[in-house]
């Protein structure tokens, strides 16, 4: 039984590695999954902002914060003044939420969790829709709460 299990695994490893070599969507064996690598534009510019940059832009009022999480989670707590544009309903709410925001505004998009893809996906969507000054605050909500920076609860989500 165990030799059969081992043989099946070896067969899968061999086939997987061989087919990957000729696959059009070939993956490198080891990928760089750091947020910085995932959020670097073709120009080489990083879209990531640190907690310090996010804080400075918050207190100077230079940036508009966008919460990419679902509306019910946004209402449970969000960065003070942040607007809610849930990534999963972006087409539905984009015009409403972005109506008064100029394309050259500094936008800081966040969600929650080191690997949370909502903010990354929303930021790239905004970038390709013409908002070239968009940044991602990775794991933003957790880091913001940890530092005890201003937050709001409830409130009316635009979305």
């Amino acid at each position, binding site marked *: *039984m*165990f*030799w*059969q*299990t*081992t*043989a*099946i*695994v070896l*067969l*899968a*490893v061999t*086939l*997987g*590695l061989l*087919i*990957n070599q000729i*696959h059009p*969507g*070939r*993956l*490198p*064996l*080891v*990928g*760089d*999954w*750091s947020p910085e690598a995932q959020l670097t534009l073709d120009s080489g510019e990083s879209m990531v902002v640190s907690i310090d940059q996010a804080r400075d832009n918050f207190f100077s009022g230079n940036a508009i914060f966008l919460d990419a*999480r*679902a509306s*019910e*989670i946004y209402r*449970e707590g969000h960065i003070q003044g942040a607007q809610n544009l849930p*990534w999963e309903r972006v087409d539905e709410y984009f015009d409403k939420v972005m109506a008064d925001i100029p394309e050259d505004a500094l936008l800081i998009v966040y*969600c*929650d*969790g*080191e*690997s*949370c*893809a*909502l903010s990354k996906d929303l930021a790239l969507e905004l970038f390709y829709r013409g908002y070239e000054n968009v940044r991602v605050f990775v794991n933003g909500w*957790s880091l913001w709460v940890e530092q005890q920076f201003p937050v709001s609860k409830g409130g009316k989500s635009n979305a």
Partner: protein
Amino acid sequence: MLETPKKRSTIFLLVIRLILGGVFVYASVDKIIHPAAFAEAVYNYQILPDALINLTAIVLPWLELILGAFLILGLWLPGAALLCNLLLITFFGALVFNLARGLDIHCGCFSTSQEGTSNLCMCLYLIRDGIFLLLGLYLLTRIFLRKSEAFTASMNEQL
């Protein structure tokens, strides 16, 4: 008439093999065609170290395909059934782990909400994978029992 329960059991085992084999084959196809999307799904589980994400995304779909094909064709059944259970336990454990720590596997983001669609989906996945796991355990047990019966019969013949 004495053959009927045995025949029924054989047909039932065949049905379980076809169900589990079909599920594995079906689950593997899209992952093989779109390895990058599957790698992102693996990343969203936040269980494996970054260095193993691509390798898993390359090998796992082929393991599922081969395993599914072997279950359907009845090849190397003891080894295939054991591996099938190991995979199902791993998938089930990964879901339970992420549900317990509040990680939404769709986006890799944390959600403190106990309501909403993502939590419901996770519970439905758990029920689905739990059913597959029960089928897998039944299949493995029956194969073991049959092997044991065959071994006892051959020993009796020798005596």
